[in-house]
Structures are given as C-alpha cells and as structure tokens.
C-alpha cells in the first residue's frame, strides 16, 4: 500500500521514471563529457553544473517552500568564503567542505528565526533577504585592510582571496584534484543534491513543506507550525547554496565579494523562473540555458547581457509564469490525452470537472 501511494506521489511530481532518467542522464554527462571535451571545455561546463546546484537551492526554497528569498547569493558567498578561509588555514579541504555547508546553514537559521518567527509577510521576506545580502556584500567588500584576517587568510575586501587550493582527496592534502577531478566533484554534488531534494520531497517533511506553500492557514489548522517548516527549508536551501559556493571557488580558484552581488541572486531567480517553479529539473535546465545565454551575449559584446536577462524575466512573469518544464509537461500530458481519446476510450462526461464546470 505504501509503495502504491509513493508511486502516486511520484507521479504527481513527474514520476519515478523521470527521477531515474534524470539521474541516469546526469551520470552519463558526468562520465561521458570528459571523453569528448578539452580541459577548457570542461571548465566551461563545470560552471553550468555549479550554477545548477545554486539554482536547485533557490528552486527548493522558492518553488517548494514558497519562500521568496531574494538573497540566495548571500549563502553562496558565505559558503565560498567559508571554504576559502578554511581550506587555506587547514591546508586540507576535508573539513573545509562541511564548513562551507554548515556556516551558511547556521546563518540562515538565525536569519530564518528572525524572519519566520517574527510574522514577517512573504513580500517582506524578499526585501529582508535582499537587504541582508547587500549588508554582507558591503561588509565583505570593506575588509581589504590587513587587519581583517581569519587565521592566516586576509579577507582582502574588493580584492578577494586569490589562489585558493582546490579540493583534495579526503584526508590527503598532497593530492589535489585537477580540472577533471573538480568536474567529477561538481557533477557528483549536483547528483547528490538532486537526489537529496527528491528524497526530501517524498518524505513527510517535504510533503508538509509543499502543503504549507499551498495553504499556510490550513497547515496551521491541522497542527503544523509553518514557521518551523519554513525555517528548516530555508536552512536546507542555504546549505545547498553553500555547497554551490564551495564548488564555485573550486571552479574559479579565486573568490571576491562579487558573489554576494544582487545580480547573482537575480540570476538564481531567473534560472528557477525560466526552468519551472515547483520542479527540480526546471532549475537545472534554467541554469544551463540562461548561463549559456549570458556567456553567448557576453562574448558577443555589443548588447549588455542585462538587457536580455531583464526581457526574459519580464516575459516569463507575464507569459509563462510557470516556466518551461511545467509547460512541456502540460504539452506532453495534452498530447497523451488526445491520443487516449483518439484511441477511443472517451472520458465519461462528468469525470472531467473542466467539462462539467464550464457550461
């Protein structure tokens, strides 16, 4: 019985088949791409994978938990800086990775407690997250004096922190990963985050989170404390963003306060909006598509990428507020239904509420 309802549930969110095929695809790309692509090509697609993880963090927090976080880049930046500071101080990435995930989570826990337990409305949550990420940017940006150091690491303000060592094999700092290794690590991270979110969404916790997004009052009247669930979802999202930050540093080998900038947060939101709100595949797709678009426009040079991004954002809000993935899903659904009808099993008239309701 349980497996039956689980299957039903999976169907509702795109089906177990879709989960497995996405995983399979990610694995295929992960191991296949290095065979075909040069080191530099790999470097370019690594950032797409990093951005996909970042997009998943936004997609979970916004699309599933309904929290309008406009400052997700704040957690990305915290994770990035935490990794940089830790890995240089310890000379080993083994501890630096968990630190880069946990620090943003702790920060999000404090911030989330402040917001969700303070009865702050959805729109204000947007403004507060945005403001906090601006505060973080300004603070980090003004730490260029040599007095601002953690351990041996000078934070460097606007300069950022250069020459950050990459990940190494666990417990063995003498064996750092090369470009291909970082690609595997990043794709592994993406696969892990995707599966983890899938698992969370299937769990009771995840289902309640989605229910709260659907109707907070109802969830309260049933006895769930929306504040707690939102807080936890927000913290999980921050951890994922932190991981994305850690991998971002590994990709760039360098970190500057730019990661905290509003454009980063804006990008995450656009990824999710374009890909599809309330899906997991959507943010990944959106990240790859938009990041690729930004690179293309950026290289071409005559038009500022912002112009294109702005138009995309407005167009999707106005025309396709649900994003690409749900749009495609609906199209497939419709195609299937049409097929069904053509095959000759007409739906009973009163079975379709759309038909009976509309007169």
């Amino acid at each position, binding site marked *: 019985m*349980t497996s039956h*309802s689980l299957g039903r*549930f999976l169907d509702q969110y795109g089906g177990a088949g879709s989960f497995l095929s996405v995983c399979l695809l990610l694995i295929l790309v992960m191991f296949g791409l290095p065979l075909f692509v040069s080191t530099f090509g790999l470097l370019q697609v690594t950032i797409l994978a990093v951005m996909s993880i970042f997009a998943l963090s936004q997609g979970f927090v916004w699309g599933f938990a309904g929290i309008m976080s406009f400052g997700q880049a704040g957690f990305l930046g915290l994770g990035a800086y935490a990794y940089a500071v830790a890995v240089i101080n310890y000379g080993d990435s083994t501890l630096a990775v968990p630190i880069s995930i946990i620090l943003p989570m702790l920060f999000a826990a404090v911030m989330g407690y402040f917001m969700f337990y303070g009865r702050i409305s959805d729109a204000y949550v947007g403004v507060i997250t945005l403001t906090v990420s601006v505060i973080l940017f300004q603070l980090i940006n003004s730490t260029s004096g040599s007095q601002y150091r953690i351990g041996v690491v000078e934070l460097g303000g606007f300069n950022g922190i250069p020459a950050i060592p990459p990940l190494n094999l666990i417990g063995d700092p003498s064996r750092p990963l090369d470009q291909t290794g970082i690609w595997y690590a990043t794709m592994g991270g993406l696969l892990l985050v995707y599966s983890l979110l899938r698992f969370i969404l299937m769990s009771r916790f995840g*289902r*309640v989170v989605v229910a709260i997004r659907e109707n907070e009052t*109802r969830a309260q009247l*049933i006895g*769930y*404390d929306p504040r707690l669930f939102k807080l936890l979802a927000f913290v999980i999202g921050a951890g994922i963003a932190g991981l994305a930050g850690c991998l971002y540093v590994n990709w760039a080998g360098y970190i500057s306060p730019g990661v905290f900038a509003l454009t980063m947060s804006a990008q995450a939101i656009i990824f999710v909006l374009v890909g599809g709100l309330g899906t997991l595949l959507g943010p990944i797709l959106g990240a790859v598509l938009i990041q690729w678009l930004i690179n293309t426009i950026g290289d071409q040079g005559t038009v500022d990428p912002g112009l294109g991004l702005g138009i995309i954002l407005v167009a999707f809000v106005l025309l396709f507020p649900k994003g690409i993935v749900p749009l495609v899903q609906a199209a497939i659904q419709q195609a299937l239904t049409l097929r069904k009808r053509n095959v000759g099993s007409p739906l009973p008239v009163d079975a379709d509420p759309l038909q009976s309701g509309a007169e």
Partner: protein
Amino acid sequence: MTNPIPAPAKKLTPLLEARDVTMKFGGVTAVDHVDLVLNEVELRCLIGPNGAGKSTFFKMLTGQLRPSGGSIRFRGNEIGGAHPHDIARRGVGIKTQVPNLFDGLSARENVFIAAARRKSVARATAIVVEVLERLHLTDIADREVGRLAHGQRQWVELATVLAQEPELILLDEPAAGMTKAEVEQTAQLILEINRTQAVVVVEHDMQFIRRIAKVVTVFNQGKILVEDHVDRVLADERVRNVYLGNSISA
C-alpha cells in the same frame, strides 16, 4: 491499559470553556462578551443570522484571531490567543466555511498531510485509505483538489478533519452547497463522529439542525441570545424574531 486511580477531576473540567470572549474590529464589536461551555463528546449547534459573530467566534477558538478580551480554555488550559497550530495540536480540528485546502495537491495528499501530523507515514497512509473509503472519496482521491466541484471539496475537507482525529471538531456550515442526499449523509456522519468526539456545528439549514442537534446556542449581534434544547430554541419567539427581523416592528 487500565488506570487504577480514578480521575474525577477530568469529569469536572469541561472540554471547552469560553468566558467573556470579546472581539472588536475598529468600531465594530463582532463578538460581545460570550460565555460558552462544552462538555466532552458533546454535540452543539450554533445558529444565528449572518453577521451574528459565529465565524469570528470559531476563528478565536482555532487561534486565527486573538480575542480582544476574555478567556478560552480547552481541557483547562488557556488557548485564547495561542497559535493555530498549537491549538490544533491540543486536539481541535476545523472545517472552515469556505473549503480551505491544499488546492494544488490531490485529495489523498491532503488527507495524508492531516493524518501524518501525529502518525507515522505507514499508519497515516492506512488512515488515509480508511477515511477516503468512509467518505466515498476513493474515486476522486488522486484528483487535484483545486479542480474538484464545491461539494466534493466540502467532503475532502471533512476527510482531512477526520484524519486529524481531533477531540473537538468545529464544522462551519458543513452542509452548504450539498444536495439533499449529501446533507443527509453529512448529518449521519456527524452523529457518528459524535460518538467519540465533541462537535460544534454552525449551520443555517434548520432541517439539518433539527436532524442532528441536541443543545443549540443562538448568536445574535455578537451575543448569545438563547442556549437550550433544540425544540425549545426553535419554538422560541425571540429566536424567530431575530431570524425574521420581527423585533423591529415590535
């Protein structure tokens, strides 16, 4: 499980005890110093014309509104002004006037969420099947609730309330928008529920009230006008007057 020591105190405390409860919105007093006591496994009906304060009173019982004054006790504990989820955890469930559901989720998922609050996933899944069966919702269980017809949504909301297994169930107009047959089913269901749980019903349909009620409380202009056995209440001249507006020509 037998308790060797009898618990007389439990008998003495009423399940729900509202004292002097008042709610003001600006210059408007929606609920005006109301006292209401409900015993364990009691069935109570609240009636009264539109705007008499019944729904507002319900909202205070569930924590959606913080009373401007007075006290509400559930099993002896003050719940006035507590968080809705806190009150729900203490065992109060409500079906609101307008169906209030997780519209994007299936009926099954809606009921599951309600059941899973206290139970393990496996147990909750079993409860879902039971409850859906009991309310004849199995056929539409996997449809998105937001796309169901009004009456069906009423039933789904009833199902979620049942799945919560609360000790006190508040039903705000459970029969509204239902067919005659459905109304009868609802009445039977309420009586059945009432064997184990206390129920408060707000309803306008007097046939329905007659069908289920024992004690009826009549609200008028935020106050309790009468509280008595259903037959006496419905025969009461004052009650008739508030419904017909006769007081004005008197």
